[in-house]
């Protein structure tokens, strides 16, 4: 049975923990709102880019221009690059460990098919865990994305340039992103997205896109494809990063909300205990006094 003083100390320590977690929840909430706004405002560009790409792709089928390697792939399927997107900060529930688990599963799956796997880690938490088992596979890792004033497009395209350079050097044949899709504030779903070979949507809102007749290009189709495709990849990557950032804040908010509630429960329980032992102590004292008086 802990003494009254011990109980009192525990209560006050849990109370200060609750203060911290509820403050963290507030912070995550306001960061989440900003991240969500950012993800929201990046979406129009992404949507229009994919619309332009699909009309480009539909015209590609008719013309004799060779399909670029970014869409068609290298014709091999031997080396795989996995980009694991996690957050820099912890205390966000299973957010990071879910991505790590999925990445691990993918690595084992591809290796069992005798493919060579390499890794790029975005975010400090993922890197820290993954490098324990797969240090030799990690090509490089990136952290502190969007630390200053939120993520900018240039940060996304910088990562994209690195990936493209690796692709052009023939370092891998296909590239997948493992990240947390932002479904809602309380639920982020680990998703695998194929980045390269690039999948162009041929349908928009369920309707097949009609190929444009007599579509003209300036300067020409090949040049446009060559400059548009890397851009489209960068946009996809940027969108994914933004979504993951928003997801991390949401996960942290949920985790901190739970922690605050748990701390509240704990305080209630401890207070009950404390009062009980206090009363027991008083009762004991009374009994002692009374039995002492009776004896006289």
């Amino acid at each position: 049975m802990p003494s009254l003083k011990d109980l009192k100390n525990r209560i006050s320590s849990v109370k200060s923990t609750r203060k911290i977690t509820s403050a963290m929840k507030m912070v995550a909430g306001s960061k989440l709102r900003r991240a969500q706004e950012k993800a929201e405002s990046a979406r129009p560009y992404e949507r229009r880019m994919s619309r332009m790409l699909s009309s480009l792709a539909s015209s590609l089928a008719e013309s004799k221009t060779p399909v670029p390697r970014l869409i068609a792939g290298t014709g091999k399927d031997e080396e795989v690059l996995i980009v694991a997107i996690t957050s820099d900060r912890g205390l966000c529930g299973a957010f990071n460990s879910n991505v790590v688990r999925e990445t691990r599963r993918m690595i084992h799956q591809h290796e069992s098919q005798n493919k060579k796997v390499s890794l790029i880690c975005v975010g400090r938490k993922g890197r820290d865990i993954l490098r324990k088992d797969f240090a030799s596979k990690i090509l490089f890792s990136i952290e502190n994305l969007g630390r200053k004033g939120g993520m900018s497009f240039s940060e996304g395209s910088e990562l994209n340039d690195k990936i493209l350079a690796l692709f052009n050097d023939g370092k891998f044949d296909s590239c997948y992103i493992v990240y947390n899709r932002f479904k809602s504030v309380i639920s982020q779903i680990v998703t695998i997205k194929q980045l390269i070979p690039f999948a162009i949507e041929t349908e928009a809102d369920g309707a097949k896109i009609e190929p444009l007749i007599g579509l003209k290009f300036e300067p020409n189709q090949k040049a446009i494809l060559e400059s548009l495709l890397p851009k489209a990849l960068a946009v996809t990557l940027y969108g994914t990063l933004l979504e993951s950032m928003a997801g991390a804040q949401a996960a942290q908010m949920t985790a901190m909300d739970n922690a605050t509630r748990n701390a509240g429960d704990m305080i209630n329980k401890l207070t009950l205990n404390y009062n009980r032992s206090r009363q027991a102590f008083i009762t004991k004292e009374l009994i002692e006094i009374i039995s002492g008086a009776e004896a006289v």
Partner: protein
Amino acid sequence: MAETFDFELVSPEKLLFSKPVAMVTAPGCKGEYGVLPGHAPMITEIKPGLLRIYENEDTVVTNRLFVNGGFAEVTQTRFTVLANEAIPISELKLETLQALVKDLDQKIADANSEEEREPYRAEQDFLAVKILAATS
């Protein structure tokens, strides 16, 4: 009121403009071109330059923006510009740009070899276009 079509200007970070307009001129990679309703479909690359928007009739410029390269898609009913970056002309300050040019000139003068000068030259060209847009 003149006939209109939907014009959209987006940069990776946000949607800047989405309205029906009468005419837009854009700096294509093979020269500036204007888009009117019912234009033949095409996809073009855009170089850094000035984008003029004629909202109500095709003689009065209502909006001027500097675009830092990108792509444009024209169809019968809409015109979409995907700019790498877009800045309204009113936000371009001539003085700051000129200060930047002076900085660059200094850097070019300080550079020791032609290779070192190369990146500055590209930036210089880019600034020249920006200034041209700001003064137009």
